[in-house]
């Protein structure tokens, strides 16, 4: 359909767009917006699965020597929980945001390779189903989300769980690399006239960096997975020390991917917060060039810290030390981001919508997660605390309190754009406060559980440890508060889709290009683009430079 045929037809509800009617229009779609929505919906679906698994774990750990599930079931459950949350929730969530928003934010019609984009999604989707099929296909994987060798060798875990795990991650990994390359190409080649790389929104900067990390790190995982499949299916012995292989080799491969991976997960979250905070502070981002530069610095450094996951494997002194230094160094650009967000809020006119509340809680919770990371960069302390519940706390402060809070902030912020309806702010506030309460209640005590000697991945713990039992009990209760708040969130999304207020093109008075098209954006995105003269094209429309003698916002 050409612009001429339908010059001014706009819609104010996603379900009204005729091109999006019917299942077939989604299955066969190469529209980045539909693909983005499908990514996000599947991520949310798998999030419910991961949450259910987490609740089973928390019930099992509520009291000592519990037998709610068997130890073998527990081992499958934590493995599936971790794998789900990282690969089936974190990755599709960020890809969903990235492929939905990037073309809109840079004023493009679609991704650079729309068909590759669709392939990336479907390959992810079926890879994910393959992983879950393991539950009925002979047993789920049970070696943790990083599947350390040689436990993954056939001799130790003979059920097909690890094969499912490996095949599914291999398939999804290939899709991710394709999407990563697609994102890089899109940002580099499809920007609107006037939008130099200095003028792209910071979210897009972070997506560009994420794309590069994806394209460079996932191949390491894919290669290692092929080796583990060879070991299991063709009787090679890459990772089997009993036959001259090496157990540590797997860890090097895995973490060479795994550490960039955690930045892959968090950078888009940084991007979301970096868009949300300025808009609701009514100020341009403070120190935008430092923000961009620190992102690139993190991207580089993230390839040089992987051994900090292996500090207790008995590495040489200097190897240990160099990786301790690089791990401490990566905290510096991360800190720069925190200061930048604070300085952006400073002197602004803060509007605490639900999106802004989540972004604000993100700052504190991410800082806590970052600081527990700094504790572990100091190697002797890592030696004491690693592989304990302290790490479980750390993971969740950065991934749940950080990444997921940021993404939820993003959902509150862009839901009006995507669907044409506002989310309920009233339910949103309940969701926010209960989630903050539930999250911190569940995970803050876990730092102490680690200090009291509780290792991660344990199915149960003995009687006679009153502190440990009390804290586990409390953590489980809080987890139910957390789960309830998630229920509110899903209710809000469903209810508001039907009953929400009509959003209008730019409900938040924001300034990046996606707000220049209607809500929801028509299939072809833009009729006409506003001129891009700074990082905030829509702000410039209402605040011409000569207006008050102020400088236009956001130029580097």
């Amino acid at each position: 359909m050409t612009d001429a045929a339908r010059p001014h037809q706009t819609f104010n509800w996603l379900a009204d767009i005729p091109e999006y009617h019917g299942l077939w229009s989604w299955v066969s779609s190469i529209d980045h917006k539909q693909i983005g929505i499908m990514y996000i919906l599947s991520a949310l679906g798998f999030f419910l699965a991961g949450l259910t698994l987490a609740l089973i774990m928390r019930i099992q750990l509520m009291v000592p020597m519990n037998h709610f599930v068997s130890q073998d079931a527990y081992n499958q459950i934590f493995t599936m929980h971790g794998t789900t949350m990282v690969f089936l929730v974190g990755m599709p969530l960020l890809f969903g945001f990235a492929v939905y928003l990037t073309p809109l934010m840079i004023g493009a019609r679609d991704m650079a390779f729309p068909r590759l984009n669709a392939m990336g999604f479907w390959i992810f989707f079926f890879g994910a189903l393959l992983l879950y099929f393991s539950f009925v296909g002979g047993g789920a994987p049970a070696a943790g989300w990083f599947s350390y060798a040689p436990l993954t060798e056939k001799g130790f875990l003979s059920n097909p769980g690890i094969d499912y795990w490996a095949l599914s991650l291999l398939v999804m990994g290939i899709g991710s690399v394709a999407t990563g390359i697609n994102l890089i190409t899109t940002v580099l080649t499809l920007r609107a006239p006037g939008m130099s790389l200095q003028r792209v929104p910071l979210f897009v900067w972070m997506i560009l960096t994420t794309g590069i990390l994806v394209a460079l790190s996932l191949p390491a995982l894919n290669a290692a997975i092929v080796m583990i499949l060879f070991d299991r299916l063709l009787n090679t012995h890459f990772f089997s020390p009993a036959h001259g292989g090496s157990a540590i080799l797997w860890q090097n491969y895995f973490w060479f991917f795994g550490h960039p991976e955690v930045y892959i997960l968090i950078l888009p979250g940084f991007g979301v917060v970096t868009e949300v905070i300025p808009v609701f502070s009514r100020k341009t981002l403070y120190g935008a060039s430092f923000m961009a530069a620190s992102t690139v610095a993190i991207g580089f450094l993230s390839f040089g810290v992987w051994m900090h996951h292996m500090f207790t494997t008995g590495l040489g002194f200097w190897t240990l030390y160099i990786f301790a230094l690089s791990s401490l160094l990566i905290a510096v650009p991360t800190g720069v981001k925190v200061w930048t967000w604070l300085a952006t809020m400073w002197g602004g006119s803060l509007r605490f919508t639900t999106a802004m509340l989540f972004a604000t809680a993100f700052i504190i919770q991410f800082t806590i997660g970052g600081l527990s990371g700094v504790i572990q960069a100091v190697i002797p302390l890592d030696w004491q605390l690693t592989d304990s519940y302290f790490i479980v706390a750390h993971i969740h402060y950065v991934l749940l309190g950080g990444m997921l809070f940021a993404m939820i902030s993003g959902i509150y912020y862009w839901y009006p754009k995507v669907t044409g309806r506002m989310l309920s702010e009233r339910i949103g506030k309940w969701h926010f406060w209960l989630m903050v309460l539930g999250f911190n209640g569940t995970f803050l005590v876990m730092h102490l559980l680690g200090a009291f000697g509780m290792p991660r991945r344990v199915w149960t713990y003995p009687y006679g440890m009153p502190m440990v039992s009390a804290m586990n009990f409390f953590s489980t209760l809080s987890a139910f508060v957390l789960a309830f708040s998630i229920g509110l969130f899903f209710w809000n999304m469903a209810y508001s889709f039907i009953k929400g207020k009509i959003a209008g093109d730019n409900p938040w008075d924001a300034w990046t290009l996606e707000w220049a098209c209607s809500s929801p954006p028509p299939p072809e995105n833009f009729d006409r683009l506003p001129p891009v003269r700074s990082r905030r094209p829509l702000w410039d429309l209402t605040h011409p430079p000569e207006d008050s003698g102020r400088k236009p916002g956001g130029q580097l």
Partner: protein
Amino acid sequence: MDLSSAQFTSIFNFATEQGRTLVDLLYLNLWICLGFLVTVAGLLIFGIIKYRHRPGDGEPDQTEGSTTLEIIWTAIPLVIFLYLGWLTFSVMGIVYPPAGKRQPDITVIGHQFWWEYRYPKSGVVTANELYLPLGSDLMLEIRGADVIHSFWVPGFGQKMDAIPGHPNNLFLKPIREGLFLGQCAEYCGSQHSLMRIMANVVSPKEFEAWTKSQAKVPAPPTDKTALHGRELFMSRTCIQCHSIAGTCATAQVAPDLTHIADRKTIGAGVIANNLENLTEWIMDPQQFKPGSLMPNMRLTKSEAHDIAFYLENLK
């Protein structure tokens, strides 16, 4: 199993020189991190109160940044983190010195769901319950027999992975007597959670006595029940996995039972060691430790009782 005689398990309740060094470092690092957190949270809360939107406010000033300020807030954390880097360096040198040609005092071997301890100097071999002499500088060699495990007693300071094909060292100087608990910290399969460590720090004299009693071969049984028990032990599958010094049981894949009667627990800390429990264990280990690699051998109660009786005399 009731382990209430044990010391309170916590990294702050240290029992070795190394543990103390780590706790001191941890306190310092915690203060620094708390400083950061209070700064961030303080600024944020103050900012929220002060700059909250009030009706009638216009658009705020569009400040774009200040290079000086940005350099300052990059440089200050950098300096602090480099200081932490220096501390890392010096503490690592203290608690993890190069081993050189030094021979280990104890070899710790992680097996799927239990621990083997070998004292190469005295030839003692035991399982799950470790004995250490107070005040001596010890070097432990940590090995993995099958998959990766990790030896972690929080009171001792650092943990160390037990990796097959890649022996590691751990340095300990015990400074307090008592029973200190720990457990395997690297997920190692089905029953990872019940792979406990019971580490006893005893006075050098007691350690001497313990070593002596462990090194001698237990006297053969004379009692009729025990004799029957021994016969069953040697004729059933037990000897394919276990060894008992002075007998034809020499297999190495399961805990050495030479002095099983001296141990306080069975199954790496899951139940107390007494005749009744041991009988039950021999009949069906899986009821106490599901996933354990000792199978249920379908012995009758009286057979199991006789074997247990024999084993309980191995002092």
